[in-house]
């Protein structure tokens, strides 16, 4: 009996000791919130997971709470989180939306951290876009150049070689758009663009043609330059493609990519993210990737990593540790392999990427070509008004197609409206 009382007492004591040592450990457990739309994306999602794993291994008392928010609801979710005073500590935003957050003072100035850690951002692709009011408020995660993917079998069937310029491209698109089953409804398309959805994607799709025609939304000083012969030519090309239904109408970008991957669209101009979708498609063995037939190719900054400004100092230190891991040479090299994309770091080793991404050289080549030509999807001088500008361009382009308007008149209207938006 005595022995059993003793064992109970000892057991109780041991439990107390364990509890007293475990409780402080539990109380020291810290959580950093990280919201992203890329969580389930094959490739880049895996890369994020590897960064988180490394961070948690280095900081055993810190857990990253990684939450997915759909891209369509991303801006309003993040706005609500920041406005409600509960922002995620690690901030992931698209490069066309971070400016609004930076303008509110919600993103931390990273210059002291960059300076103290010695992070070298020289030659970091797209990093200049992260400057807000003269200070770096983010690190660019991707600067890309568009690729040109085509269904070799469909082109061969029509006796077409991969196009090298606009004239060849439009001729091929016309020849490849057809009704294959004779039900009166075209079911094979020369090319594929999103024509339904948000203004940002619409703008990107349209820019493939305006850039090749030599048009720019604004000049280097941010002055609106839409009412030019080059831009009129670009708009005419867009009208020709969409009005003649050489692209399936009213589809989202995701649906268009899937149709291409399944062999219903012959040619597709898109970013590096198209490749993982191709690999899952029915026509993956028929698809080849080349440099776009347009010059310069569409390219630009994609998404950024930053730090919320209104968080405690110890959290800021941890967030910087996270950014340091993501921007390290090792993880930048892994970015090329896992995410099938060009890493922004000039020090990243991309030799291994060719195994996972056979067209990796083309990605590098087009990103460099876009960068050299100073191409970005976000027009200079319209960063803050980007959403409104993109919506306006989409509506005026739709009006041009629906009401069969002269592109010259449309360019003049766009110019006036863009100037009004810029003045707000």
């Amino acid at each position, binding site marked *: 009996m005595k022995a059993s009382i003793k064992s109970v007492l000892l057991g109780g004591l041991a439990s107390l000791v364990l509890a007293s040592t475990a409780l402080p450990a539990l109380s020291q457990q810290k959580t950093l919130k990280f919201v992203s739309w890329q969580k389930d994306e094959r490739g880049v999602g895996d890369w994020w997971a590897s960064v988180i794993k490394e961070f948690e291994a280095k900081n055993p008392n810190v857990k990253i709470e990684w939450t997915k928010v759909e891209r369509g609801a991303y*801006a*309003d979710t993040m*706005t609500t989180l*920041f*406005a409600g*005073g509960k922002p995620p500590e690690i901030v992931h935003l698209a490069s066309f939306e971070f400016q*609004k957050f930076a*303008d*509110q003072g919600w993103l931390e100035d990273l210059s002291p951290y960059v300076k103290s850690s010695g992070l070298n951002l020289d030659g970091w692709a797209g990093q200049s876009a992260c400057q807000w009011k003269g200070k770096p408020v983010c690190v660019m995660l991707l600067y890309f150049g568009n690729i040109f993917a085509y269904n070799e079998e469909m082109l061969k069937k029509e006796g077409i070689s991969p196009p090298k310029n606009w004239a060849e491209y439009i001729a091929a698109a016309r020849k490849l758009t057809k009704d294959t089953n004779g*039900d*009166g*409804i*075209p*079911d094979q*398309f020369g090319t594929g663009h999103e*024509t*339904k*959805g*948000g203004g940002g994607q619409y703008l990107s799709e349209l820019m493939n043609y305006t850039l090749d025609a030599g048009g720019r939304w604004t000049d280097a000083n941010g002055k609106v330059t839409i009412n030019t012969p080059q831009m009129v030519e670009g708009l005419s090309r867009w009208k020709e493609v969409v009005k003649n*239904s050489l692209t*399936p*109408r*009213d*589809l989202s970008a995701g649906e268009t990519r899937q149709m291409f991957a399944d062999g219903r669209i012959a040619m597709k101009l898109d970013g590096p993210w198209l490749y993982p979708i191709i690999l899952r498609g029915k026509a993956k063995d028929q698809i080849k990737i080349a440099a776009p037939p347009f010059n310069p190719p569409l390219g630009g900054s994609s998404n950024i990593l930053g730090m919320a400004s209104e968080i405690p100092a110890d959290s800021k230190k941890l967030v910087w540790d996270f950014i340091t891991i993501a921007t390290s040479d090792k993880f930048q090299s892994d970015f090329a392999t896992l995410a099938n994309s060009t890493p922004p770091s000039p020090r990243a080793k991309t030799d291994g990427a060719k195994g996972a991404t056979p067209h990796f050289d083309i990605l590098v080549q087009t990103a460099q070509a876009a960068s050299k030509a100073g191409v970005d999807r976000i027009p200079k001088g319209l960063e803050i008004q980007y*959403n*409104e500008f993109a*919506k306006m361009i*989409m*509506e005026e382009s*739709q*009006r041009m*197609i*629906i009401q069969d308007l002269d592109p010259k008149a449309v360019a003049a209207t766009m110019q006036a409206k863009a100037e009004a938006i810029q003045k707000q």
Partner: protein
Amino acid sequence: MAGGRFSLDLARPSRQHWLGYILLAPAVLLIAAIIVYPLIVSVDLSFQNVGIARLDQPRRPFTTANYERLFTSPDFWNACWVTLKLIVVVTSACFILGLGTALLVNNRFKGRSVARLLVAMPWAVPEVIAVVIFAWIFDSSFGLMNWVFLSLGLIDKTINWFSDPDAAFAVVATTMIWKGYPFVSIMSLAGLQSIPEDYYAAARVDGASALQRLRYITLPCLMPVIGVTTVLVMLWIFRDFSIIYVLTGGGPLKATQTLSIMTYEQAFSFFRMGYASAIGVVTLVICVIAAKLTMRRAPDNL
């Protein structure tokens, strides 16, 4: 009981109503917290020039600029017109279909329970799922509707349902009607079942035809139900967001941009929360006036 001490004797007849207030207080406080407070904040924001609103920021100077801009904006009047068109088209169609199906399933016939279930089914389908179904039906390239119309020889080339302003409006209205008519049907069916059978028996004895029984018994007896249902359907159309947003996003060329879509766009796409609040406040005022008018007039006039 000592005279100076507070006591609340709820058993006293003069204080019995206090119990009601006490029981209601938690609900009232909750409603105040989740409805009235945001409403006050929204009205307050509508009189400020605010980009992204934060409650911990100092109040901006009072201005009526948001309302001045709103009432001179063609986009606002367009959104009002689109909302009005949707209300008229969707409410009318919902009533014709809802009342028709309610009259049908109110009769006794074999399989009535299944018929009632089928009539009510669209109401149970989540809005986003309904939208996905209709987006596929009306897909411009691979949708069912184009194939049916072409097969029947009604059209000679495919309709771009979401690139044509009139077609896009028709798609949105059709989806809303499909989603909304079962509610009218269920409410009407409940109303029909409360009409005493004696009325119809007496009318039959007097030689009233089926149409006369509908005109002089069914519809007058259903008026209270129809009045309330009209208000509820109207308010649903006013506030509905997901159907339009997922199907068309308000486009093309703002052909389906209602006041609720415009409010969302201004707040979360263009980050003009003061202006968006002004649209929200005006929408609320319109809703209150419309509801008041409908509730007051419908039962008496029809």
